């Protein structure tokens, strides 16, 4: 079973890294969260019954681990304007910078919003997001609109 588990993680480790990337601000936190997610997936692996897709199951465990974990500082909303100004100052933005700005903006979202935005960016249908989060697909849509508004404010920049 261990071999099968290791192979599964190896094959889908991108999911874990994406979750860590969204929830962690530095490499040390990233590694700690990655380790914790692997441990929790290993704990849950015997009970996985293929009722849902393996990726949905992995997202569910990974996001639950990330949300309930004891992590350090969270950026406060009072800094929101500061980042917005920094973004506005830049006239020429490369794709790499775009991604960094996106990460930076996501840092200001709540833990629940981060999960929803990650699943949205991963192009998951609202039904699957609903299955992972436990809210209705309609409410996912409402929530997503609010998040979009928030991100729009944060990423206000002239191109």
């Amino acid at each position, binding site marked *: 079973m*261990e071999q099968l*588990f*290791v*192979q599964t*993680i*190896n094959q889908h*480790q*991108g999911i874990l*890294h*994406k979750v*860590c*990337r969204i929830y962690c601000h530095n490499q040390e936190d*990233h590694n*700690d969260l*990655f*380790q*914790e997610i*692997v*441990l*929790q997936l*290993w*704990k*849950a692996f015997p009970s996985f019954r293929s009722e849902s897709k393996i990726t949905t199951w992995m997202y*569910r*465990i990974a*996001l*639950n*681990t990330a*949300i*309930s*974990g*004891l992590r350090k500082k969270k950026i406060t909303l009072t800094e929101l304007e500061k980042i917005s100004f920094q973004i506005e100052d830049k006239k020429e933005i490369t*794709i*790499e910078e775009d*991604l960094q700005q*996106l990460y930076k903006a996501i840092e200001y979202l*709540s*833990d*629940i919003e981060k999960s929803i935005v990650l699943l*949205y*960016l*991963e*192009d998951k249908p609202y039904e699957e997001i609903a*299955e*992972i*989060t*436990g*809210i*209705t697909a*309609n*409410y996912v849509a*409402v929530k997503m609109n609010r998040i*979009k508004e928030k*991100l*729009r404010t944060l*990423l*206000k*920049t*002239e*191109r």
Partner: protein
Amino acid sequence: MIELDDLKNIWSSNIESDIGKQSIEQEKIRTLLKSKSTNIIDKVRTNLLREIIMFCVCLVLVACVPVYLQTKEVFILCAIIVAVIFIPYLIYYLKKYRELKRFFSYNENMKSSLQQLIQQLEKYLSIYFWGSLLLTPVSGFLLCFVILYEMKALGFLLYFDVYSSATLSMILSFALLLTLISYPVMKWYIRKLYGQHLEKLKGCLKELEEAE
């Protein structure tokens, strides 16, 4: 202004190369399986185990008091304390420890996982608080009693009757005062220990329940 669908494009075209740098080998994944979990429930379980050990040490100490003092009254008092406080609490703690060992909520969706996690944490913090608060007057009372008894045996407090109702009332008052002082201290300590984390989890759950 950047549009939200652009975000999805930025994400999909860049994320794979970004996380590709983080990719780890199968052997490393295998090593991770042997590491120690920092999960909140595992931490609570470790704390509970420490509590159980402390309870057992206290139980042995309380059981030693009548052996040391060798009086019928003290024996009865200690037997009551052990039977009414220590044994039931120890059984409850052991039951809770086994329950936490089996507890795993991450297979559920985020909302129900959070609900279960919050319920477990609240239950644990409640028994931890009341257990510690209950131990304070008992330990205070016994400690005071043994000190006074010992001082009298050593020749101090010659005209002092350890068993008089006035002395017992004084010791009892001291134990109650100790409990009153420890109440806010315990509240603060528990909040510092897990309270803030519990609040954070409740905040997440509230956000998910907004739609209902």
